[in-house]
């Protein structure tokens, strides 16, 4: 066997060692970064969830006006917690559309009756397909989308009261 080849295992180990030590020295990241910011909303068309309110399609987000896209469900407790914030956003003139994930019309109607209804449109995503395409890993999540259908901000988890102003700013800036 070649003499040089005998040192190959040590060289490989040294490489692994360098990789591992760099991973150890680098501080861990605690914030989940959005992979969707700067990307267009994927193409989708969802049927209506409740009677009297239209369903939702990607075309809605390309009509020149920035909007919020809220991913929620009636079975989701943090969604109840964020409902007042969504109502405040609506009062501030921010149009909000929603995707209801793995839900039924009656359950959503009940949810809206109990927690208020900030939504212009609600699409029914019964198998989480659009949710997956949006890169959303849970409910609730909210996307700020500019008038051309590009995502400018993603809020993971429920919107807290102190975030409302920040979101209003982001929507204004996206105009």
């Amino acid at each position, binding site marked *: *066997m070649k*003499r040089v080849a*005998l*040192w190959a*295992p*040590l060289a490989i*180990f*040294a490489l*692994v*060692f360098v*990789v*591992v*030590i*760099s*991973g*150890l*020295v*680098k501080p*861990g*990241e605690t914030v989940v*970064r959005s992979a969707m910011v700067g990307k267009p909303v994927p193409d989708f068309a969802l049927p209506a969830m409740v009677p009297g309110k239209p369903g939702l399609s990607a075309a809605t987000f390309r009509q020149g006006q920035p909007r919020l896209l809220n991913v929620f469900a009636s*079975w989701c407790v943090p969604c109840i917690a964020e409902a007042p914030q969504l109502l405040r956003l609506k009062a501030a003139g921010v149009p909000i559309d929603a995707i209801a994930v793995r839900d039924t019309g009656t359950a959503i109607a009940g949810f809206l009756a109990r927690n208020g209804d900030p939504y212009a449109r609600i699409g029914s995503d019964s198998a989480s397909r659009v949710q997956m395409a949006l890169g959303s890993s849970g409910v609730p999540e909210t996307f700020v989308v500019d008038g051309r259908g590009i995502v400018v901000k993603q809020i993971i988890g429920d919107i807290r009261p102190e975030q409302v102003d920040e979101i209003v700013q982001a929507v204004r800036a996206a105009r």
Partner: protein
Amino acid sequence: MIAEAGLAALWFAGALAALQLAMAAIGIARNRDDVSAAVRPVAIVQGLLSALAMILLIWLFLRSDMSVKLVVENSHSAKPWLYKFAGAWGNHEGSMLLWVTILGLAGGAVAIFERTLAERTLTATLGAQAVIALGFYAFLLFSSNPFARLSPAAPDGLGLNPLLQDPGLAFHPPTLYAGYVGLSVAFSFAVGALVTRDVGPAFARAMRPWVLIAWIFLTLGITAGSYWAYYELGWGGWWFWDPVENASLMPWLAATALLHSVTVLATRDGLRAWTVMLAVVAFSMSMIGTFLVRSGILTSVHAFAVDPERGAFILALLAIYIGGALALFAARIGTVRAGTTFDPVSREGGLVANNLLLSVILGIVLIGTLYPIVAASFGVQLSVGPPFFNKAAGPIALLLVAVMAAGPLLRWRRDEGRAVIARMALPIGATVAAAITLMFVWPGVLAWAGLSLAAGLAVASVAPLWKRNLRRTPLFTYGMVIAHLGIAVSLAGMASDSAFTQETLVAVRAGEPARVGPYQVTLDGISPVIGDNWSALEARLSVVRGTQARVLHPQLRFFANPPTSTNESAILTALDGQLYTVLGQPDAQGRWQLRLWWKPFVTLIWFGGVLIALGGMLSLIGRVRRERRTMLRAEWA
């Protein structure tokens, strides 16, 4: 006093490890046999002292001594005794102490039982074992002292993670660690043989039983861990490609390769350098696994504490041991005479193919496990999951199964291709028959190939017994047959589970039935239950299949210390599979979520694992008996 006695035992054990190293070095460098002779007893006492420290720690946990920091942080006086006992290693410091204890005991066992290895090589081996032990004693004493006191003492402890409060904790970590750390013996043997340049069949025969023991424990530990995760986590999965599962799989793959290459070295004096390399790699994988788990560099259910300082300490040890051994390998192995060569179509050839394929799988798992760290250093966050591992390692594993079927039917040294195919006729026939039958239920490519090959392997693995006098067949041949059969059984279980599992998620009121697989499941009602240190909502499920009726009780369990809830699944095992039920949350309308799985033949996975370990045990007994007989014969001659 118990804690102080434990700490003293650890310090003494560390000092003895230093002494052991010094005496082994002097004995070898100066050729002083009188000094070398003392290495064995020192190794034995060192092992006993580390065991004493472990026993004292267990005692502290059993007594719920709340003046000890580790007990306060990880135990609670209201816990059942079994979890106080096993809780001793359900935390970082305790598990590292268990690691060191097994290391010390393994060294002691080598000192007591090893009689076949050349005395000089044995001294070097025990010296190497002492080097490893020293580093880990230092780690425990300087950065992870399990006996640290807490002043003032706490009124009670914080409790143990409820997921760990399961009889599995009593068996899974000790068996797995015995496997991990047992491989240190193979590592030390390799280092010892490099130091004395004594790599040959005698060395291989001496090393083989130690590798086998470690491998048996590793197999059992992985099997137990897989079943534990399966029923405890409530996801119905049995392998998640979690970094820590990979950390246990990698040493197993290396040890399996080593087990086979050491046979070539023992029987035919081939693969000298490769076998030594594998012995180094196998334990290196154990240490890398320990590092990945203990440093918190990867996120995992097994990472007890995120502590970069401890990570750096283990990493330094890793660099010294693995780097040192690889450097020694590079410097010395050139002076080891090349072994004999052989024909590609031969038993040796089959074993080389086995080794190459195992190494490729090992490489894939290693790359998949480390890739997130590499990506993170370039600022990309990602995780590598089942889609990668299944696609990359699956096909190679199936190829390995094909080689495994043929291997035992090959002759040593040289074989005829045509004759091999004739001998393989029956297994190939079984594979083709299974493949054609399965076409009608098409389970997907991987599962289809898996099930067909499992059928072929099952036939091929018993083929070595064909036309042999079964009473004169050596025990280790039975061992091989059963271990290979175990792989076939396990593979069939995996493929069947991935292809035919049925899952339903329903929300039901009491009295409403749901269907999954051949079962009709009806929720009779929900009632509260009280346990030792938990309370639960327990569902009563009437389960009907044909004319058979049974009752299952899945629970939603709440623990007070620490406040957590767990889903306790209820499983019904039938001959042809398992019904797996999990109780979920209630909704506002009085309906309860039930998650139901029907998993055909899933139990074969773990049954196969047990068979593999059993094969290893038979092989071990057979090999040790034969060694002893030849030794006795040599003494009488």
